[in-house]
C-alpha cells in the first residue's frame, strides 16, 4: 500500500478532519458539544502547523505525486495559511451564534484546507477545484447568521460574481489544455506561446482577478466587505487572495523555460500588458475611491483592492536569480501577502471589537474619540493602519520596500524593464494617496471628540488575543523582516527544479543535488 500520499497530505487531512468533526459537533444538542468546534478548529490548525513544520521545506527535488507537487512554495503557503488561519479563528471566536459555531468554524477550516491544496495543485483540474474549495465556504461565511438586507445583498452578489469568475477561470483552463494536450502543469510546455495560450491565460487571469479583487473585477468588494461581519471581512482579505496569487504564480511558471530564472517572466506580450494595466488600474482605483468613503469597512475594502495592485506589481517584476532579495519580485509578493493578511485582519478585528450605538463600529464617526475611550484598541488600530500605510517600524514598510525595489531594479530588457519602473512610480504615488484616508482613520480615533461613545465589547478574550497576535506579528516582522524574508525566498529555488517522480522503479540520480538551504547559504555568502 502506498502510504506516501496520506503521509504527505497529513496537514490537509488534519484540517479537513477537524472541519468534519466541527461540523458534526456543532449539530449536537448539549452546550458542551456546541462550544467544542472552536477549540477543535484551533487545535487542528496547530497540529497541522506542527506537522508541516516537522516535514520542513522540500528536499532538493520537489516530489510530484497524484497531480500534486510537494515543493517549497507549498511549504511556505501551508505555513502562512495556518499561522494567519489561527489568528482568523481567534478573531471569529465570539462571532457566531452558538447554534452556528460548527458551521462557521468548519467553513473556515475547509477554506484553509483549500488554500493548502491550491499550493500543492500541479494539475489544472485540481487547481480549479482547490480554488473553488477556498471560495465556496467564503460565500457561506458572508451571509451566515445575518438577516439584515446588506448581508443578503453581499452574499448574493459575492456568490453570483464568484460563479461567473469560476466560469471564466475554467474556460481559460480549457484553452490551456487544448494548447498543451495535458492538464499536468509540469508537463505543459507552453513556450513559445501561441494564440490559444494567450486567450487561455487572459481568461484565467480574469477569473483570478476576481478572487484577488483586482480591477476591473473589483466592483463587488466594497459591498461584500461592508455587508459581511467584520471578522469575515478580515478573512476575505487573505484567503481568496492567497489562492488567487498562488494560481497566478503557477500559471506564469507554465511559460518559464525550465532552466531560466534570470530575467523575470517569459510571458506573451498581451499577458504582460494585461497584468500591467490591471496592476496600475487596481492601485489607482482602489486608493482614489478609498479617499471618498466615510464608512471604515468600505475604506478598508478599497484599501484591499489597492494592496492587490501592489502585490501584482511585485508578481509582474517576477523572479530574478541574481542580486539578492531586493530584486526578487516573487519573494516580495509572497512576503507582502502575509503582511497584508495580518494587518488587514487586525484592522477588522478592532472593528469587530468596538461597539458604537449598540452595534459593531462601521462608520468613521463611530470611531471618534476611541483614543480616549479605549486607548488599547485605538493603539492596535493605529499599528495596523500605519502598517497598511507602510510606515516604519511596522511590517508594511518592509513589504512595500521589497515590492517597489523589485520593480525598479528588475533590470528586464527593453520595454518590460522600463514599464516596470513606470509601474513602481505609479505605486509610490498611490502609497501617498492612500495615506490620505489611512490618516483620517487614525486622526478620527485620536483627535476628534466622541460622537457615539465607542466601547470595547466585554467578554471577548478571543478577539483580543487575535488582535494582540496581529499587532505583535506586525511589529516583530517590522523590526526583524529577515525571518519571513528567508522563508519567502525558499519557493524561488525549486519552482523550476525538475521534479522527482515517486515511483518504485525510479532510480535515484547519481549525485544528490544541492538542497534549497545550501543554495541559499551559498548566495548569502557570495
Amino acid at each position, binding site marked *: *500500500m*502506498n*502510504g*506516501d*500520499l*496520506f503521509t504527505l497530505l497529513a496537514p490537509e487531512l488534519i484540517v*479537513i478532519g477537524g472541519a*468534519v468533526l466541527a*461540523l*458534526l459537533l456543532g*449539530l449536537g444538542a448539549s452546550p458542551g458539544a456546541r462550544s467544542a468546534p472552536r477549540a477543535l478548529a484551533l487545535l487542528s490548525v496547530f497540529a497541522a502547523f506542527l506537522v508541516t513544520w516537522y516535514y520542513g521545506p522540500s528536499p532538493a527535488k520537489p516530489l510530484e*505525486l*497524484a497531480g500534486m507537487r510537494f515543493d517549497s512554495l507549498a511549504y511556505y503557503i501551508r505555513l502562512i495559511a495556518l499561522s494567519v488561519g489561527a489568528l482568523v479563528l481567534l478573531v471569529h471566536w465570539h462571532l457566531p451564534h452558538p447554534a452556528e459555531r460548527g458551521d462557521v468554524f468548519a467553513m473556515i477550516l475547509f477554506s484553509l484546507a483549500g488554500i493548502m491544496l491550491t499550493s500543492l495543485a500541479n494539475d489544472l483540474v485540481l487547481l480549479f477545484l482547490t480554488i473553488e474549495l477556498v471560495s465556496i465556504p467564503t460565500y457561506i461565511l458572508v451571509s451566515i447568521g445575518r438577516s439584515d*438586507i446588506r448581508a*443578503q445583498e453581499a452574499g448574493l452578489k459575492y456568490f453570483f460574481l464568484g460563479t461567473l469568475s469560476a466560469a471564466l477561470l475554467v474556460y481559460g483552463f480549457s484553452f490551456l489544455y487544448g494548447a498543451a494536450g495535458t492538464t499536468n502543469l509540469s508537463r505543459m510546455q507552453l513556450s513559445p506561446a501561441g494564440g490559444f495560450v494567450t486567450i487561455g491565460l487572459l481568461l484565467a487571469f480574469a477569473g483570478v482577478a476576481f478572487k484577488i479583487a483586482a480591477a476591473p473585477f473589483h466592483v463587488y468588494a466594497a459591498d461584500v466587505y461592508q455587508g459581511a461581519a467584520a471578522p469575515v471581512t478580515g478573512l476575505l482579505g487573505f484567503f481568496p487572495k492567497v489562492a488567487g496569487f498562488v494560481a497566478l504564480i503557477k500559471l506564469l511558471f507554465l511559460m518559464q523555460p525550465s532552466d531560466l530564472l534570470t530575467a523575470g517572466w517569459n510571458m506573451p506580450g498581451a499577458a504582460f500588458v494585461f497584468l500591467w494595466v490591471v496592476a496600475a488600474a487596481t492601485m489607482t482605483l482602489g486608493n482614489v475611491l478609498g479617499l471618498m468613503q466615510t464608512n471604515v469597512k468600505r475604506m478598508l475594502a478599497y484599501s484591499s483592492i489597492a494592496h492587490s495592485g501592489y502585490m501584482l506589481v511585485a508578481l509582474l517584476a517576477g523572479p530574478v536569480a541574481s542580486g539578492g532579495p531586493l530584486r526578487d519580485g516573487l519573494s516580495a509578493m509572497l512576503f507582502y501577502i502575509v503582511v497584508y493578511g495580518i494587518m488587514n485582519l487586525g484592522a477588522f478585528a478592532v472593528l469587530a471589537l468596538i461597539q458604537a450605538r449598540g452595534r459593531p463600529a462601521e462608520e468613521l464617526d463611530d470611531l471618534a474619540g476611541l483614543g480616549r475611550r479605549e486607548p488599547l484598541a485605538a493603539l492596535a488600530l493605529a499599528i495596523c493602519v500605519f502598517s497598511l500605510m507602510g510606515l516604519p517600524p511596522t511590517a508594511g514598510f518592509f513589504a512595500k520596500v521589497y515590492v517597489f525595489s523589485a520593480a525598479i531594479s528588475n533590470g528586464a530588457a527593453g520595454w518590460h524593464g522600463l514599464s516596470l519602473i513606470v509601474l513602481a512610480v505609479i505605486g509610490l504615488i498611490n502609497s501617498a494617496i492612500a495615506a490620505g484616508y489611512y490618516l483620517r482613520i487614525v486622526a478620527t480615533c485620536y483627535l476628534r471628540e466622541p460622537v457615539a461613545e465607542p466601547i470595547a465589547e466585554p467578554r471577548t478574550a478571543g478577539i483580543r488575543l487575535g488582535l494582540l497576535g496581529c499587532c505583535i506579528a506586525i511589529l516583530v516582522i517590522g523590526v526583524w523582516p529577515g525571518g519571513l524574508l528567508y522563508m519567502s525566498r525558499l519557493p524561488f529555488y525549486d519552482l523550476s527544479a525538475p521534479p522527482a517522480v*515517486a*515511483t*518504485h*522503479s525510479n532510480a535515484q540520480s547519481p549525485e544528490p543535488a544541492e538542497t534549497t538551504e545550501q543554495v541559499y547559504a551559498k548566495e548569502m555568502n557570495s
Partner: protein
Amino acid sequence: MQEVVLAQAVSLAPRSYAPILVLILLVMALVAGILILTHVLGPKRHGRVKDDTYEAGMPPVGDARRRFKVQFYIVAMLFLLFDVEVVFMWPWAPLFHHTSVTGQALPGGFDKTFLLVEMAVFLAILLVGYVYAWKKGVFRWN
C-alpha cells in the same frame, strides 16, 4: 512496466469515437420520442397558472426577496450529491478490479488497499454531508 499496467488498466476505454456517436443519436432519439409521446398522449388543460412559466412550483414573477420553501432545492442538491458520487465510483471500479485481480499497483504505487481506503474516505465525507443535512431537518416535511 508502469506504462504496461496503465495500458491494461485503461484498456476498458473505447478505442474510437463511434460509440459516442451512437450514444448521441440514442439520446436525441429518446428526447424526440418522449416529446412527441407527451404531445400526443398527454391531456391538455389551459389556465392562467397552467400556462405560466414553469419555475419548479413557485411564482416566476415577483419580489426577489419574498420567502419561499427551500426544502425542494435542498433535496434536489442531495440528489445531485449522490448522483455525482456514482460518477466518481464508476471509473474507480474498473481500476480497483484490475489491481485486485492482477495484484499489480497502478503507476505511483497505488495498490488495491490504497484505492479501497481512498474510496472509504470519499464515502465517509459524503456520509458526513448526509448526516449534516439529516440533523438540520432537511427531511422533515411539515
